[in-house]
Every structure is written in C-alpha cells, then in structure tokens.
C-alpha cells in the first residue's frame, strides 16, 4: 500500500463516523474493538448461565414426569413454533447482513436490514401472543393454575410452568433486543456507524444471535420432543 493511497484512504475515512475516536488507554482501534467484543462474549456467557438453569430444570422435570411432558407437549402448536423458528432465523440473517453492510459503510442498507430484523422480531412476538392466548383460553397454565381437563397424566402443569417460564424469559429477551435494535437503527440513520466504527451494531448483533440460538434449542425441546 503506497503512502499516497494511505493518505487518500485516511482522508476519506475521517469523514466516516466523525464522532469516533480510539480511547487513550487502547493501543489501536483494533484493540478497542476486540476489548468490546470480548465484553459482549462474556455477557453472553452470563446469558447461557441464566438459561442454563432453566434447561437444567427442564431436564430434571422431564425425567421425573416424562409421561406428563409427552402428553402436554402435544398441546403446543408445532406449525406456529416452526413458523417462529423460520422468522427468528430470518431475523438472524438480516441482522448478520446489517452488521456486514455497516462494515461496508452502507448506511441506507444497514437501516433497511435493521428495520426488517425489527419487523421479524415483532412478528415473532405476535405469533407468540396468539399461542399464549390459546393456552390461556384452554386453561393450559403453569402449576396450580392449570385448569384444562381430559389429561391422563398427573403433572401437565409442571410442563406448562417450564414452557411459560422459558418462552417468557426468551420473549423478554426478544423485547430487549427490539429496544437495542431500535437504538442502533437511530444511530445508523444519524450516520454514526461506518467501517471505522460499527462496534454497537456488532454487539447488538451478537446478542440477537444468542436469542436465536436459545430458540434453536427451545423449539425442539418444547414443541417437538416434549
């Protein structure tokens, strides 16, 4: 790379992300990026910890009340769950592409992709709402609130307790993710991100992918296998 090219490139790039600077305690922009990314990964570990407890509870109660779990999981709608899986995977794709276009300093494309991601998240919650209202209507509720009749096993309420707790906390993560995506969408439209600086887009993207990852496990465990 010649010096002429370097000056031309840096001259062009100072126009990108004008508010961005490397904090004085970081050696370089790369170091700053890596430190931020490592922080996000450590945060994702705590998320694994949070959901890990729930997965452990699922494992225990499934082995104790296997018959109830098998009977109860047939009352979940595989089609709705499957559609939600596709919706969430699509949102993961658009999120990953949004990070990619932010890396390429394509402001408009990033904004559009983030908006699609947001729409997918909203669609996910709408489908979840339809599912939840069906369950409420039929009395398929957690623990002692379980009031549905015609069950042949003793503990379907335990299954629905775990179902609502796991999908509920996952749904809260979707809502938080929507808030974060809205935040970086606004910042994208203000022109804050570019190939020089896109760390918040990448961080929110990593979080959003984790939300997708957890659903990848929740869907077969709750809807398919029971």
């Amino acid at each position, binding site marked *: 790379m010649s010096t002429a090219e370097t000056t031309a490139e840096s001259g062009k790039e100072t126009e990108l992300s004008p508010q961005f600077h490397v904090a004085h305690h970081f050696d370089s922009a790369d170091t700053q990026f890596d430190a931020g990314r490592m922080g996000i990964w450590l945060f994702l570990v705590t998320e*694994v910890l949070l959901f890990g407890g729930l997965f452990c509870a699922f494992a225990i109660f499934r082995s104790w009340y296997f018959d109830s779990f098998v009977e109860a999981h047939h009352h979940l709608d595989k089609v709705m769950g499957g559609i939600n899986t596709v919706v969430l995977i699509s949102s993961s794709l658009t999120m990953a592409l949004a990070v990619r276009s932010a890396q390429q300093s394509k402001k408009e494309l990033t904004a559009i992709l983030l908006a699609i991601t947001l729409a997918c998240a909203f669609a996910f919650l709408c489908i979840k709402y339809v599912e939840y209202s069906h369950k409420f209507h039929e009395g398929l509720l957690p623990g002692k609130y379980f009031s549905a009749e015609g069950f042949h096993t003793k503990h379907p309420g335990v299954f629905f307790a775990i179902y609502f707790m796991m999908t509920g906390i996952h749904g809260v993560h979707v809502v938080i993710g929507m808030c974060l995506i809205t935040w970086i969408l606004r910042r994208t439209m203000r022109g804050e991100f570019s190939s020089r600086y896109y760390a918040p887009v990448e961080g929110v993207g990593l979080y959003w992918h984790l939300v997708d990852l957890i659903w990848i496990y929740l869907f077969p465990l709750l809807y398919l296998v029971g």
Partner: protein
Amino acid sequence: MSAASHAHDDHDDHAHGGHGKDHVPHVLPLAVYLGTFATLLFLTAITVGASYVNFGAWNLILAMVIATVKAATVALIFMHLWFDHKFHSIIIGSSVLFLTIFITFTMFDTENRGRAEAIEGEKPADIRNPFKASERQADMMRNMGPISSATADVARPSPPAPASAAATASAAPVPSATVAPSASVSAAPSGSTSATPAPSASVAPSASASAKKP
C-alpha cells in the same frame, strides 16, 4: 486494500493496523450468509420432519444433535466466531462445558434420589460409628451364635480374604506386571514351577486365582 479481498487472508491474526490506524473490518462474502441461512432452514425442516417419526429414545438425541449443529453454524458464521480470536471461542465454549457439567451432575443426583433411603431403612447407620454393626444386626448375630467376623455382613468395608491377598500382591512393585492380560498369560506357565507368590499377578483376578492353585 479492499474489504472483500481482505476477507480471505489472515483469519487468525486480526492485528492489522498498528498504532493509530483505523480498524479494517473483516467482511464475509454475501454467499456465505445466504448459504448459512439455507443450511439453517434445511436443518429446521429436517428436525420438524423427524418429529413426525418416532425413534423412541433417539427422538431427543436426534433433536439435540440437529439443534447443536444449527447453534454451531450460527455461532461460527453469523457470530463470526470462526474468524474471531480463538479466545472468544474459549470463553463461550467453557460456558457450554460448565453448563454440561452442571446439568449432568444435577441429573446424577435427581435420577438417584430415594435409592439410599431404602437401604438405610433396612440397615440404619450409627452416625457416631458408621462401620459398627447396627443394633438389629447385633441382635441377629447374638441369636445366631458365635460366628467369625470375617464371614458376617459386618465386615463389609474390609474386602474378603482372596481379594486382599491379590491386593497385597499387586501392591508389590513388579515392573513386568503393568499390563493385566500379559501378566495373566505369563503367570499361567510359570506359576507351577517357579513363582508361588506369583509376583506377576497384578490386577486381573484370574491371574491371582491361577497363581494360588499351587
């Protein structure tokens, strides 16, 4: 230096751009993202399809294997873990490792609850002296008359006589007695002539039994 050409070199080393230089993003080709998306949709279709077929106990294992492949695909490509510092893989990998330990060891507990209680109901333990015979066993022994403590159930902690003999034999440091099968083979021909204490009899019970014959 375009971003696209950069995508193919120095995957492991992200130390491009020294002091004061700008961060150069690592941009993957669009086809990689679309291919990943297609893979995920395909695996979702497979796992849904497989749920309509009953594989018995394999239902759960199959679903979890497919889910793990999907999760790994998302983590490696969408989350850039494959192209990232290996330390980030170690961070998230260790969380998965410890989650596995957490669930496995909890299942060791919850799957075996109620097994000890039945045995303890039969033979209540004296907490102050757990290896002493319980009152009921002591009564039984008194009723049955004098018996040697070696044959009674009381002596469970100490192993039976032949086993202890084998244990002492194996405790002797014999260099040739490292591999059990060869030790038993060598013990069979030589046991009758030379070695009555059978120094080569190590762990295999058959070896110690054959050695005791002469």
